[in-house]
């Protein structure tokens, strides 16, 4: 018999246990932030948690309003001072943590625990604005489980539950909620564009190509091992020397730096293009870089990204900056030619050189052109010069002054791809040949785990295109100095002095394997989970048999699925829960079954004692066994205190029943 007792104040121990659950939940949820936010916020949260626990433990009184109110204002002012604002993700996170600390200090009864939980959930969301790696899944599961456990404990009017029971109850709720989460994740209508833009954390710190090319830009990029994008080919994979991934095309040169000026360029329609050669189809998953360009194998002709167009420089450009990881499929042809009526006007700009800069180069170019028979001959002579004279390919070229091309060509002769590309394009323009510098990536590492081609920032590259005989021709001057760079990749092309350690590390078999495995997992995570958006949702529905899935289909499907899940849950709660069978009764039923098998069947109305009497009469030989078993059973069933059956006696009964072998008729 249980008893519902009058409401009473929770005991000190109960209060302490509740607070402990709450503090554990809060601490776990703030973990990803504690090292990211300003140190004083971390210290404040930890300090307030310890203070609050000490208050409860020592049974001291809570701080008065005279302490709390100034504390609130001081903390808010400190956040504003630290972040210079109270909006934005970083300042918002700091603000949430401070609010959390203050709320913990104020929480007296636990009634407003829901507010603390709410702040915790916002904090989890803030953590995902920073990054969404694989750890997000355990973080969500444990974070919500802990707050659910804390909610269960706090809403108990009676004594708190033992930890084991709370864990079981929490796990039950979470497991039942998971299918609902999955259905909503896949079927909740996703919308493509954000309502309002807000700078996310780290967008400024993202590494990648730039819209300007200064000498030294790409060599600094080459030090980064972070992934730029991953590609999965549909069919053949191009050979290493053909893996030119086209990025920003630099057409404007001011004598020192090349810059991207594609924003105002006319949109090129695909119909105007003549294509030829082999083509490659692939899916590209681009890491966010915060800029408008999309990367594609040279030269893209078809692509799945809706809000993207091909510029006159054959560059794939997105109308919105790439702030999230996006995936698109594309088809690229080896040879693409543009047939545009205004070609002459377009290429005229590619002949421009600023007057007065790099005079030595200009003079040299005029002299060399006069010696050459044709434009092609002239360009070949330049490449021969790179090849035959002592030009070096290095990641650590010397600094260059105001006329960088002059200095590079006639003094230092040491440079990275951007130096060669820049010099080559300048020389071409000096001879009145239209030329432009293309930045992008060259190569990529094939991951044998999933056949993904991983292209890293260290694969960044710059090459040139020159207008010869009415066609744009790719010329990679780096290939003249360091042919290994094109065939084998950066690491092979660099001299031993560049990154010795890195090469050794990366060439260790085990290390490489580990990196590639991890990348395969991350790629799958990005591909299937993080990239899930409006397009993948449409594909999902199409695969499920909807011809033209629209918002209404989605909502309908979602509503039906959720209703079915909830009906299943209600059914389970109503009929699915079975009590554990009483071990005592089970043992006795085994005994009855043995007797029934021997021919003595217990009637429904017969009590154990009368059944034993009848059975003893019928089975005189087993009399003593029947009686001792029945006696023990009755003793345990009706004389034990409460529902707890002493285990020693139960074991004895089980042994007796097991040994019991009634004689049959």
């Amino acid at each position, binding site marked *: 018999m249980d008893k*519902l*007792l009058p409401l009473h104040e929770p005991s000190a121990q109960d209060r302490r246990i509740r607070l402990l659950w709450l503090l554990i939940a809060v601490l776990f949820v703030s973990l990803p932030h504690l090292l990211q936010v300003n140190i004083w916020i971390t210290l404040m949260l930890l300090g307030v948690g310890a203070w609050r626990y000490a208050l409860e433990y020592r049974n001291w009184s809570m701080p008065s309003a005279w302490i709390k109110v100034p504390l609130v204002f001081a903390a808010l002012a400190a956040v504003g001072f630290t972040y210079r604002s109270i909006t934005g993700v970083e300042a918002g996170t700091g603000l949430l943590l401070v609010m959390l600390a203050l709320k913990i200090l104020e929480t007296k009864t636990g009634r407003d625990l829901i507010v603390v939980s709410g702040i915790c959930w916002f904090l989890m969301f803030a953590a*995902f604005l920073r990054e969404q790696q694989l750890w997000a899944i355990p973080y969500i599961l444990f974070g*919500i489980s802990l707050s659910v456990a804390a909610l269960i404990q706090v809403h108990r009017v009676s004594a708190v539950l033992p930890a084991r029971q709370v864990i079981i109850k929490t796990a039950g709720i979470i497991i039942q909620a998971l299918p609902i989460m999955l259905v909503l994740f896949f079927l909740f209508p996703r919308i*493509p564009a954000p*309502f309002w833009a807000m700078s996310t954390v780290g967008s400024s710190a993202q590494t990648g190509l730039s819209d300007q090319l200064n000498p030294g830009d790409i060599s600094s990029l080459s030090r980064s091992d972070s992934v730029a994008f991953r590609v999965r080919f549909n069919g053949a994979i191009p050979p290493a020397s053909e893996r030119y991934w086209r990025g920003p095309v630099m057409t404007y040169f001011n004598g020192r730096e090349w810059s991207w000026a594609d924003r105002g360029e006319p949109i090129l329609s695909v119909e105007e293009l003549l294509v030829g050669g082999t083509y490659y189809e692939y899916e590209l998953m681009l890491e966010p870089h915060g800029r408008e360009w999309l990367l594609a194998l040279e030269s893209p002709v078809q692509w799945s990204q809706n809000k993207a167009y091909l510029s006159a420089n054959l560059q794939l450009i997105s109308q919105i900056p790439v702030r999230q990881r996006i995936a698109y499929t594309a088809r690229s042809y080896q040879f693409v030619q543009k047939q545009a009526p205004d070609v002459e006007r377009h290429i005229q700009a590619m002949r421009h050189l600023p007057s007065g800069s790099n005079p030595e180069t200009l003079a040299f170019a005029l002299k060399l052109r006069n010696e050459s028979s044709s434009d092609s001959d002239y360009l070949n002579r330049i490449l021969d010069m790179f090849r035959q004279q002592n030009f070096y390919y290095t990641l650590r070229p010397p600094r260059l002054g105001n006329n960088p091309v002059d200095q590079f060509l006639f003094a230092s002769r040491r440079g990275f791809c951007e130096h060669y590309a820049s010099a080559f394009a300048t020389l071409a323009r000096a001879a009145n040949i239209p030329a432009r510098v293309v930045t992008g990536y060259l190569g990529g590492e094939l991951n044998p785990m999933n056949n993904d081609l991983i292209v890293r920032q260290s694969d960044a590259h710059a090459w040139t295109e020159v207008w010869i005989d009415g066609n744009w021709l790719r010329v990679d001057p780096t290939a003249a100095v360091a042919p290994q760079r094109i065939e084998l990749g950066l690491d092979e092309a660099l001299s031993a002095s560049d990154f010795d350690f890195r090469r050794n590390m990366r060439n260790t078999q085990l290390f490489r394997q580990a990196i590639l495995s991890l990348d395969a997992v991350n790629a799958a995570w990005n591909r299937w989970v993080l990239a*899930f*958006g409006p397009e993948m949702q449409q594909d999902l529905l199409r695969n499920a048999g909807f011809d033209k899935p629209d918002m209404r289909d989605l909502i309908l499907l979602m509503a039906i699925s959720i209703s079915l899940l909830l009906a299943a849950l209600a059914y389970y709660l109503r009929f699915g829960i079975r*009590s554990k069978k009483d071990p005592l009764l089970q043992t006795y039923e085994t005994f009855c079954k043995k007797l029934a098998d021997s021919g003595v069947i217990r009637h429904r109305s017969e009590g154990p004692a009368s059944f034993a009497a009848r059975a003893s009469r019928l089975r005189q030989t087993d009399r003593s066994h029947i009686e001792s078993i029945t006696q023990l059973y009755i003793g345990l069933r009706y004389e034990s205190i409460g529902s707890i059956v002493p285990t020693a006696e139960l074991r004895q009964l089980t042994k007796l029943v097991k040994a019991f072998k009634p004689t049959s008729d």
Partner: protein
Amino acid sequence: MKGPAETLCAISAGIRNALRERSNQWILKRQGIDDVSVTLHRRRTYILPTRAGAFFAVVVLMLLIGSLNYANNMGFALTFLLTGVGLVAMHHCHRNLAGLCISFKQAKPVFAGDKAQFEFIIDNTDALSRSQIGAGLKEATAVCGDIRAKNRAIFALPLVTSKRGWITCPRIELSTTYPLGLFRAWAPVHMDLQALVYPRPTNRLQTILSASSAQSLSGLSLIGEDEFSGLREYRSGDSLRNIAWKSAASRGILLVKEYKEGGQTPLWIDWSQLPYPETETRLCAMCRLVIDADAEQQVYGLRLPGVTVSPEKGHSHLHHCLRELAMFAPAKPSRS
């Protein structure tokens, strides 16, 4: 002067109460008056979000908007897991209450001013253990506890009494906010239950004094002339009237006169011989006399206008007399 915040609070409380009354009227009309034993079927177990639940919904909605805005898939995962938790909690909450069987056990009579205890039994015939089931009169939860699977629980709901007669038990409400406090499931039960309230006995000394003064004034004896059988030592609870003051003075200890039972003349506690003008005061005094007479194990009878309880003694007689006092309705003022 009331501040605007207080006024607002008062208005919202007023609206809440009005809504509550309306919904209870509707529920009563829907369910009718219940038997003394009633199973809380699913269809009569109601559920609504609590204030915390509304807050939870707002938080989830804000998270959803944030996730949509940033197209943040882990944000979606978080939001939708919380949505799932909320929906699951709703079902658990409802299931936690539905299917229980509540039966009225008893309500022992009490004296006016004491709390009447309406005792109930809850049977949980399911294999599901019930957590944090609260019960109370109207919406105020008075008791709370867990009920294990296939088990029963008892509870008593106190109701303050003020005057004698039958007191009617208002609506009983079983409720639970388990597991997360986001929802509150409740089941109103309208059983036709009453408890008897005896008049509140007047202060002992007052009664005795006024009784003795009445005795001396009117010359009527309230006490029957019993056959004296001897003296014994005073025990607490003995009537002051029976103390043998003379013997006590001579011996130095309190002695009490004892009377032979057989020869006991019945004591009549008579309405007409009490000197109080008011009906209720008179009943209260009679109540005191009845209790005292019972404590002294006397044989006593009760005379009320229109009602006579013949002299007897014992527990059931006591309650018979008290019941008559509780139920007494003065026929007409002119008669007394």
